[in-house]
């Protein structure tokens, strides 16, 4: 069940992604409406993070493309924010919480320029939103996991974008913080911003998101939560690995085939 929308804020067209020639995502086709709060749901190894990273050009696509706001990413970077998993960086880095949040402003600042007073104020405001304003001067190595997560969230907020991608923002966060964060995201969606979240906890999906992507190496479903989050589709997404697909992936890797033939070289 894949529901497409008019004037999508994000369009992914026939996207295939491979790691070391091994395809991990097959032929993803989807569109997302503006102002939605989207949950990407699927079992471990389903390619949830990879999908986001590929849309954001951090992982090259073997074939297919993504359009954001109907344009290439390079032309709309200012309108796109990203919150990586917190394990993706070494937190034993000589920087304060405020330093890290200010990084969210670097895109707007451009090369060579130092953060201005306005940038600092935005950063402080974002820290306040995530309840971390008291920690602005704290060294990042002294933060707990949940606090690190909130710092990354504040940094993404500081980008002041229209489309947000978040990779497991609730991992390692206590229940109260999770509630505060989801409140924040819902508020953003009400302001017609689009938030795409990789999510792990099936229990809260219905409560949190109004649009759901079910992923398991391929797109099982995409649509409004109440239409997609059904037993039948969940079965399809979680009902064991698609062994045939995995085997073919491994064959492709072993044989060193390109996942896609180059155009014009059909043989």
């Amino acid at each position, binding site marked *: 069940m894949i529901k497409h929308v008019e004037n999508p804020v994000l369009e992914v067209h026939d996207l295939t992604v491979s790691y070391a020639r091994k395809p991990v995502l097959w032929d993803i086709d989807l569109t997302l409406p503006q102002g939605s709060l989207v949950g990407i749901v699927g079992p471990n190894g389903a390619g949830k993070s990879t999908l986001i*990273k590929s849309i*954001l*050009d*951090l992982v090259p696509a073997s074939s297919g493309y993504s359009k954001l706001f109907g344009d290439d990413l*390079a032309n709309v*970077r*200012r309108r*796109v*924010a*990203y919150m*990586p998993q917190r394990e*993706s*960086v*070494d937190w034993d*880095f*000589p*920087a*304060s919480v405020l*330093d*890290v949040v200010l*990084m*969210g402003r*670097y*895109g707007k*600042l451009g*090369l*060579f320029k*130092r*953060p201005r007073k306005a940038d600092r104020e935005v950063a402080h405001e974002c820290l306040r939103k995530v309840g971390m304003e008291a920690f602005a001067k704290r*060294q990042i*190595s002294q933060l707990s996991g949940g606090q690190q997560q909130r710092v990354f969230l504040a*940094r993404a907020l500081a*980008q002041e974008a229209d489309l947000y991608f978040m990779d497991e923002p609730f991992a390692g966060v206590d229940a109260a913080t999770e509630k505060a964060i989801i409140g924040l995201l819902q508020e953003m969606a009400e302001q017609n911003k689009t938030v795409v979240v990789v999510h792990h906890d099936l229990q809260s999906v219905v409560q949190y998101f109004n649009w759901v992507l079910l992923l398991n190496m391929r797109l099982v479903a995409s649509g409004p939560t109440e239409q997609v989050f059904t037993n039948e589709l969940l079965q399809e997404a979680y009902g064991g690995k698609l062994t045939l697909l995995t085997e073919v992936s491994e064959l492709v890797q072993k044989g060193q085939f390109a996942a896609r033939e180059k155009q014009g070289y059909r043989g």
Partner: protein
Amino acid sequence: MEAFVEFFSLRDPNIRYVVLGTILLTASSAVVGTFTFLQKKSLVGDAVAHAVLPGVCLAFLLAESKNPLLLIVGAFVTGWLSLVVIDTITRNSKIKEDTAIGLVLSVFFGVGILLLTNIQHSGNAAQSGLDSFLFGKAAALLPNDVRAFGILAVLLLAVVGLLYKEFKILAFDKNYAAILGLPVRALELTLTTLTVLAVVVGIQAVGVVLMAAMLITPAAAARFWTDRLSIMLILATTFGVISGVTGSFISYTATAMPTGPWVVVIISIIAGISFFFAPRKGIFFRVRRQMNNRRMILDENILKTFFNLGENDHSFKEARSWDQLLVERHFVPRRLRNGLARLRRQGFLERQSAGWVLTQAGFEKGKRTVRLHRLWELYLTQYLRIAPDHVHEDAETIEHVITPELEQKLQEKLGFPEVDPHQSEIPYR
């Protein structure tokens, strides 16, 4: 002493050149090295340092003179080439980066030594002094060299100053920098170029063999003292400059001494001091904190034992003998003796003919430890559902850790209970 005054008064213009040169060389490598260090690419710096030697020799063979500009170009080319080779090997084969670095380093350096030996035996008069690239010779810096390398060093510092925030985000979170639209590839290239340049500039002072130490050690030492990047840069530069100037002073006074090894010895001493004595992160402070903790635990355990003995016979004001204490709890006798003496000194115990007795302050402290122990046991059984016969060991540790704020919270959460899971009374104020 005379040499010291002569050197540091900077009256001799030659010495001025040497000192100025050394400061610029060591400062630029420390600054660039800080970012190399934070990017976790320390080994790459070592590879580059060794790989510039064949470039220097080739440039000399082509020009048949020691024109500093040509030598810089030569060093730069092979330095860069080594990085490209490392990158190509890592990307296109199963060989991991550390292996690739090892391969490239030894091959390039081997070729460099080969060329250098050849040049030395060629009978070319201009070659004398070329071997100072091996271990560095700051004292042999000519005004011409200092000008060339000095300009390069200033340029290097200026670029780092301009791209400070870019290099910072590159070292912390490269993917995020890419998302923001920063030209990550170009920035990485710039930083790599700067690393090669810093090496090229630095080898005059310390030589190719030990150059990596000048890149990495100042940053590693500085990291112990601070958690702020700006201060880390300043400290690394200071450490680098101190070792550079001292090293060139030694090689100035003892003419046969190469500069490089001395510079490295001094920066290593600085690093050693940082490693042991830096506040909070240094070994010395960590050991001292552990010792303090052990002492605190022992003291609280002794007072707790007095309190327990008092509970048993309902008399807290009675003197306790040595044997009584040892029967109640298995102390190490030597530690117990020290602990008793310390507690007496601090006013928690008093000595009487029959033994030791709690003062009021000692009584309160012992009571608090017992209270925390029993509260924690109760917390574990009620909230973590741990069996009552399993909670004692946990509480033995936690009773020393809980702060007054946590104690307050714990009491409120449990509703000021009267007895612990073993029906012992919880003593309040």
